[in-house]
């Protein structure tokens, strides 16, 4: 393996991605959403409600999770097709790096860049929240971790879109459409209830697991300890099918499967298609 070549592509991809205005904008948006300005005012006035953190975290979950795909989907969707269109992919691959090594460097570089944005956005906000006297820092860290996992799933999907697209504009359009589809479908409650009534809880759970945003949201509810007040119909179906002890690890596993499968498909497709 040409480790230096992979490192070259990875560092170049990371630097280029982190410099884009899109990424900077998202860093600021995540920070503003996570810092929860109204609650900061209340905190400064000494009027923080007793359930402040739980409310803050559930707001964070419901507002930011549907937005997280918008970071990786457009960026990942154009990443390969743009290189193809401009001819730079041909230049990169004319050097002694394989298609698999290029994909590895590109995917990890983008993953690190987008994860950095999430960590900086949420992390900076959590530091601010922490200094206001809230001590439950663990929940914020867990939300960051699960947000990063959802981001990874979306990046995997975006890279597949990029590989199959012939034009950058088409790839960007498909990326936005996929976000819209998942963001709209992520409100699954009615559908899951209907499927549960007609075909049973296993079929209903399958529907839930096919939506990575909802699956990641459920994982965050369990993992960050947000409590039963945040349970969706999907959470309840999962608890019914898998039981109390298994739901958290199985949901975690489901998100991991999404990550592994999307990146594996992206890797396999890129290795076997004409690169330029």
């Amino acid at each position: 393996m040409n480790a230096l070549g992979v490192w070259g592509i990875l560092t170049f991809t990371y630097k280029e991605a982190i410099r884009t205005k899109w990424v900077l904008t998202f860093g600021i948006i995540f920070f503003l959403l996570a810092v929860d300005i109204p609650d900061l005012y209340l905190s400064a006035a000494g009027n923080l409600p007793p359930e402040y953190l739980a409310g803050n975290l559930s707001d964070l979950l419901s507002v930011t999770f549907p937005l997280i795909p918008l970071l990786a989907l457009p960026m990942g969707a154009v990443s390969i097709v743009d290189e193809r269109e401009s001819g730079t992919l041909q230049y990169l691959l004319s050097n002694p790096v394989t298609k698999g090594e290029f994909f590895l460097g590109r995917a990890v570089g983008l993953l690190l860049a987008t994860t950095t944005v999430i960590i900086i956005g949420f992390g900076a906000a959590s530091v601010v929240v922490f200094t206001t006297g809230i001590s439950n820092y663990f929940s914020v860290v867990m939300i960051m971790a699960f947000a990063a996992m959802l981001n990874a799933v979306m990046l995997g999907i975006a890279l597949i879109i990029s590989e199959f697209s012939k034009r950058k504009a088409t790839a960007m359009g498909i990326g936005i459409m996929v976000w819209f589809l998942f963001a709209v479908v992520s409100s699954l409650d009615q559908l899951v209830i209907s499927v549960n009534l007609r075909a049973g809880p296993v079929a209903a759970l399958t529907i839930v697991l096919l939506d990575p945003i909802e699956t990641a949201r459920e994982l965050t509810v369990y993992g960050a300890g947000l409590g039963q007040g945040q349970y969706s119909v999907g959470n309840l179906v999962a608890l019914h099918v898998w039981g109390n002890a298994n739901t958290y690890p199985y949901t975690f596993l489901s998100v991991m499967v999404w990550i592994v499968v999307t990146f594996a498909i992206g890797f396999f497709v890129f290795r076997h298609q004409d690169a330029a």
Partner: protein
Amino acid sequence: MSIENVEKRYGKFTALYKMNLEIKTGEHLLILGPNGAGKTTLIKAIMGILNFKGTIKIDGIDVNKDPRGAKKVIGYVPQNYAFYESLTIYDHAVLTTRLKNLGTAQIEEKLRLVNLWDARTRRVRACSDGMKQRLGIALALIGNPKLLLLDEPTSNVDLRGQLEFQRLLRALLKQGKTMVTTSHLTGLGELATEVMVLDRGRIVVRGSPEELMSRLSVNDTLFMRVREPDVPGVTKLATELGAFDFEADGEWLRATVPSKIKLGVVKGLMNGPYTLSDILIERSEIESEYVKLLQAGSVGSRDPGN
């Protein structure tokens, strides 16, 4: 480099059809053909970034079986200078050394060779086309590859850039580099040791530039500066000598003359009764002649090797 039965299809479209070719060390193969002839597809296949049927071996290494090994002996100068606009010249060189798994020691030597060392901190977006072309050559030369692939290297470059490029090419040929250059219309014919014309994925004709020129009935253009009253007489005399297709423009008379007899025509005109204050000959280039013939559909399968 040897190419055996190489075939590439995109659906029903045949980009390369059962291509066979051998290039010896130190040769410079110029591949000509109109857009869509298969030139760039062939270059991509040689680099191993396309899936294709058949075998391509570079320095004995099979491109399909060991793409990394094959690419170690290849230097590629991309079409349209496909570089990253936001990176500097030096950044590109560093990226290339990493991709080639090398240290940065060669960077200064290669950038100096193409006169870019002093401009190394300049971003690509601020570089002229000529500079981008030279950057492409410098990057391709990092790692001292045995084979250089140049894809339409002069397509966007002005005359000065083309002359500079030809100077560099001559120097590299002197060093014994093997080169494959594609072009749809350039002035590189005289630098090639072999010329191959592609059309619709097939080799139409192949041979040395001299051999191919002699097989063509190529015409040159003759410009004669004559006094206006002498134009009819000069036209008549030149016609008798073999020139045709006359056009008068002020004091200049233009005529087409078969390349093989152009010197005889000039000699006959000089010995004639008319005063010619100047004569210019515009030579035809092998590549433009073949492309013209391809466009006219009059080049058949005249390739001795196919």
